[in-house]
């Protein structure tokens, strides 16, 4: 029995990737939840917004790389990020002006807004494929690892290695910074508070003289930032492929709903709950088990609960279970 090696193996294969993935999902779910709370509809175009924003970042990264600009050990994409956010923000505000505002003025039912977001989803998806193509793009550069498995083994003398990719470290740090900024904005600034007020009670917000168009404008800008950051981090960590981003819609919505739609804290919690469940249930525990269990009990197979392809089933099952027992999510969400 070798608990330390088991723990290291578990950290290496479940904890670290799960944390990074959870941070990415949390950022995505924050965007979904903000739109739900303030614009009051489920935005089906969110996955494609992430793809769209990441596309800008990739294009600018390429331009920087071409011009010989680099950020040393960290990926060049971080330098490109602000520009990507700005472009995505412009696009989203443009979409709001051309598309969503018309329906908002009419005060249509939320489901109509969802339909409209399907149309926007098609357009963004088409544009992304049109501009950068449907294929895989890798755009991570700089140092690949913070700690390599071999260094870790040499340092500690353990049999198991622990590798932390630079992108994983950057994901967590960036996510923390973004979340701290977001909560500071929502809880401490006048505009942020007015957004929360608008989300809480639209009519009373209007009576208090809060300008809804301004609130909406800020919401789209923040959503652009969240989506682009989430998409870029995911792309750096794994790779960028428009279809994969579209599919992220499911775990992201699951995270937002599990946490409680409209509740930012819930979105973060939901992101990590979904990510860890997914990684844990689809991880082959053979390695960990061989350290912990006596030899006679060591598993023959991979000790994998479910094949990795069933990760959607995990999001789905969690979603259903939470909804059956806590219909407004783990943290109290709102219902329109």
């Amino acid at each position, binding site marked *: 029995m070798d608990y330390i090696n088991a723990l290291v193996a578990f950290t290496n294969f479940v904890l670290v990737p799960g944390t990074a993935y959870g941070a990415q999902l949390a950022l995505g779910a924050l965007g979904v939840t903000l739109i739900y709370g303030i614009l009051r509809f489920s935005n089906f175009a969110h996955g494609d917004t992430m793809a769209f924003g990441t596309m800008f970042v990739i294009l600018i990264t390429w331009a920087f790389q071409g011009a010989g600009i680099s950020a040393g050990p960290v990926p060049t994409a971080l330098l490109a990020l602000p520009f990507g956010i700005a472009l995505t923000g412009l696009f989203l505000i443009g979409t709001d002006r051309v598309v969503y505002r018309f329906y908002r003025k009419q005060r249509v039912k939320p489901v109509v807004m969802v339909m409209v977001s399907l149309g926007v989803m098609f357009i963004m998806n088409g544009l992304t494929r049109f501009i950068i193509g449907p294929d895989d793009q890798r755009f991570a550069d700089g140092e690949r690892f913070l700690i390599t498995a071999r260094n870790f083994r040499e340092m500690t003398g353990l049999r198991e290695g622990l590798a932390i990719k630079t992108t994983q470290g950057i994901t967590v740090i960036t996510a923390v910074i973004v979340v701290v900024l977001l909560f500071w904005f929502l809880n401490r600034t006048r505009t942020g*508070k007015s957004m929360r007020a608008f989300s809480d009670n639209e009519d009373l917000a209007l009576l208090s003289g809060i300008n809804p168009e301004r609130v909406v404008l800020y919401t789209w800008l923040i959503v652009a930032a969240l989506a682009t950051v989430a998409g870029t981090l995911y792309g750096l960590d794994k790779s960028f492929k428009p279809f994969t981003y579209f599919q992220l819609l499911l775990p992201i919505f699951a995270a937002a709903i599990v946490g409680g739609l409209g509740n930012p804290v819930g979105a973060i919690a939901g992101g990590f709950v979904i990510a860890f469940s997914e990684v844990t249930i689809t991880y082959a525990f053979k390695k960990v088990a061989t350290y912990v269990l006596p030899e006679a009990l060591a598993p023959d197979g991979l000790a994998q609960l479910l094949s990795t392809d069933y990760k959607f089933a995990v999001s789905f099952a969690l979603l259903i279970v939470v909804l059956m027992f806590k219909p407004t999510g783990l943290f109290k969400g709102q219902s329109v």
Partner: protein
Amino acid sequence: MTDPFLIGDQMSGGYGSGPDILHDCTIAVDEGEIAVIVGPNGAGKSTAMKAVFGMLNVRQGAVRLFGEDITSLSPQDRVAKGMAFVPQTSNIFTSMTVEENLEMGAFLRRDDITGTMDQVYDLFPILHDKRRQPAGELSGGQRQQVAVGRALMTQPKVLMLDEPTAGVSPIVMDELFDRIIEVARTGISILMVEQNARQALEIADKGYVLVQGRNRYTDTGKALLADPDVRKSFLGG
């Protein structure tokens, strides 16, 4: 005769393009006065007040504030003109703290609001103790205090209250009325719709009894309380 401070003059109208609910209805309040609208259920009490606040389609008649015709202004614009409105339900931001509720009330103001906030806390000391708590966690009476406090943060000239004592206990109701009188003493006009007609008329400078969207009796609160007809029909003897 000069116009009162705020007057909804012979208003007729209804919601959207629906049928008229108000017919030649007049509601007015003078500076620092308390005006109360009472009447049976479905008399159009709240509707009359909403008409004054611009939440209704007023087809005939006019609303004037300080002599200025504001009939065509939106509710938001009326807030900017110094009118404040406390709805009967969903009148606070439940997920925000008491202090944030007050801050949101003062959203349009760009000057220092701490003075006004202190005044509100002086008026409702309990709110000061609970200022860091989410407003949704407070009791019914405290919620109403938050709602009134939020409306006061705009430093309004007129405060309009839609059944402020609905659903609160009699003790809390008395206290709320005391506070409302205090607010009126600071020079703010108060226009209020009330179910508890007797208590409301006791503190009212002016009372309006509405029936089916029309003015039935209009007099000072005391006179209405003394009027045997009013007593018999609307105050239960």
